[in-house]
């Protein structure tokens, strides 16, 4: 807050079926780590943050993970609020994972702000032998549901792992209106600041 320039916030979400590697992909991008034994759906934090400088401008990329609420498809509609971009992630070694994607597109369509940038990601390309989804199928699905980009990644081997995030930021920044502060979801001006600092003492008694 003391910085001379307030970074622009970009909010991105990951969605998709359980065990598609959303959190791994996120950790690979933010911390460049991969924890093979960490198979829990837990993340313990509300979102991860990556600070970016693009064309000498500061950005805060806030990446929200599903917190396990994708497991029984109980993500809240509030999870989608204000999102600029969504990464839809499936597992290329699991056919069911891919087959569930139309429902995730529908959910994004239903709850995310209009004009949200969607990117389809087929993860786990390291599992060459178990591949159950062709890249061309992913390509086709992305086109069908209006995802502006499709890529296949491996959080484990780093294969293209940063690409969907970088692409998302690129597209958000290059799409006119995508970061427009007048979008309903980003209209912060009329919000009451209820943070502790804003709280005045004693209230305003009439007497």
């Amino acid at each position, binding site marked *: 807050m003391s910085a001379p320039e307030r970074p622009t916030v970009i909010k991105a979400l990951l969605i998709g079926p359980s065990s598609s590697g959303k959190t791994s992909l996120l950790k690979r991008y933010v911390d460049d780590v991969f924890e093979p034994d960490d198979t*829990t*759906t*837990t*993340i*313990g*934090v*509300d979102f991860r943050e990556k600070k970016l400088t693009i064309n000498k401008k500061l950005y805060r990329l806030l990446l929200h993970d599903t*917190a*396990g*609420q994708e*497991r*029984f*498809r*109980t993500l*809240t*509609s*509030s*999870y989608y*609020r204000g999102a600029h971009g969504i990464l839809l992630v499936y597992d290329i070694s699991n056919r069911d994972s891919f087959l569930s994607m139309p*429902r995730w597109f529908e959910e994004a369509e*239903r709850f995310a702000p209009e004009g949200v940038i969607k990117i389809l990601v087929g993860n786990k390309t390291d599992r060459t032998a178990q591949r159950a989804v062709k890249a061309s199928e992913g390509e086709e699905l992305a086109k069908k549901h209006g995802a502006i980009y499709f890529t296949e990644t491996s959080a484990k081997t780093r294969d293209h792992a940063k690409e969907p995030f970088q692409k998302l930021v690129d597209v958000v920044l290059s799409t006119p209106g995508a970061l427009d502060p007048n979008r*309903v*979801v980003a*209209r*912060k*001006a*009329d*919000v*009451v*600041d*209820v*943070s*502790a600092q*804003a*709280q*005045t003492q*004693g*209230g*305003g*008694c*009439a*007497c």
Partner: protein
Amino acid sequence: MCWVDVTSLLDTTTTNTPNPLVDPSRSFSAMNIEALDQTVWDAVIAGTGLRESLLAAALARAGKKVLHLDQNPYYGEEYAALSLDELEAWTQNVKLSHIRSVQYKTYPVPEGSGLKKSRSYTLSLSPGLLYTASPILSLLIKSNLHESLEFLKVGGWFVYDAATPLSDPLKRVPNTREDIFNDKTLDPRTKRVVVRALKSMVGSEGVNLGTAATSSGLSLQQYLEQPSFRLPSSIIVAFTSLTLLHNLPSELPLGEAEERIKKHFDSLGRFGAGFSAVISRYASGSELVQVLCRAAAVTGNAIYVLENGIVDIQEPGSVSPPIQALPNESTEQGIRLSLKSGDVVRTRHVVGTASNLPITAPADQISSESTGYWMSIYVVSSPLKQIFQTDEPPPAAGAIIYVPAGSIEVNGYSNTNPMYVVVHSSDTGECPDGQSILYISMKETSSGGAEFFDATVKSLLQNLTSQESGADNTAGHILLSVTFKTCADLEPPDQSSSGRVHLLSRHVPMIEIPDSLVEQTMEIYEKIVGSRDAFLEKTAPQEPEPPGEKSG
């Protein structure tokens, strides 16, 4: 007066009626079911109402394992936010015994000004107003959850006076001493008395001096009409409007009124000048619920399953006397719960309202003493800009209009009880631009009910929009109304004997999200955790314990 119905309570827990909202493709995989019964949960909570969700978040943050269920395909229960389609389905499928005479009505309107697509609406069954001094708000701030919410001002409090069409029919209720002294409609003597009366009720510097009359059984009206004040009815009505209570001023106990008015003034200025209450963007209470449930999930300690509920509870203590079993043993054994999905899970505690648990709760039956209310949600094709104007930016997104008894006439009868109209602007994200949402409520009367709502909204639209648009005379229209009867003031049920099944009383939200929800939640939290310390406080992220292991 209200009604008694116990049978429908049973219906909600034993039948498997297909729900039109249910997504048939959303099914449980074998792996998931296994995961649910591999652990002994610390608490299984049935229902995602505000108390249940607050409890889930607090327990999960305290390291307790929580399985949180809801029979509906959406979050929120009594605070649920619905699209038009979902709301229509809700009206056709209400399973709650305390909600009756539900009517979903659309109105013919000129082409182009009608309802927009279903999902551009986020309609709640209650407006979810929060005073800025509310303990719920302080809890959200203390626990940093306010960062996931956007609070908007509830600006003006108005009294609607339809009888004076020439002057402004909406009279703003003065908020401060300056407002009172600047009010041109009051004479100097009245101004002084109003300030004195206010002082006597709310005290100075926020300290309630307490009037001797508080406990004397006087009504607010009697108090303000006594010789030392002799205030006119217009002033008494203004005082009443600040209470958010639906009683007539003559039937409003002074003590209760004082408490409410004090709360209003205590709340003024806390987060800025000129307003005492806020609403959260996107159907207020529903958004609070969702943020709490995500906070619970984020800890890794809470699992969410919708469209599932508890159909049977088997307590281990029910066979053998509790004295013979060591407390630890019985705790380990846990309660066995059968779920609607066919799963059987074990837990140490069960929490829910009677409508979400398979138990008969005599105290939760609606008694004939309970007060009945008419409630309604209207969508209108006018932004009603005038009522959201504020002296200082930002503009308000909510406003309260008090319609006194006797001010609206239908077929020669006028309303015998006052009405509250809570207006939400499209800034809330709950309706498209150019439209607004009106939540109306009124105590049930022997003569007529909901027909007064239509007349009130039409009268408001006529008076407000004609002023707004001036010459072009495009009055707003009613696009949609959903009206129902509900019961409030229910007795809290007795606690279950074992101390492990925690029964919540039925919660019927009216205008405000009541403070008492925090206390009710904390009581159960204390029974499960052993203390109220650090309620909802965020602990450092910990690696989750493997399922099945005892936590805490």
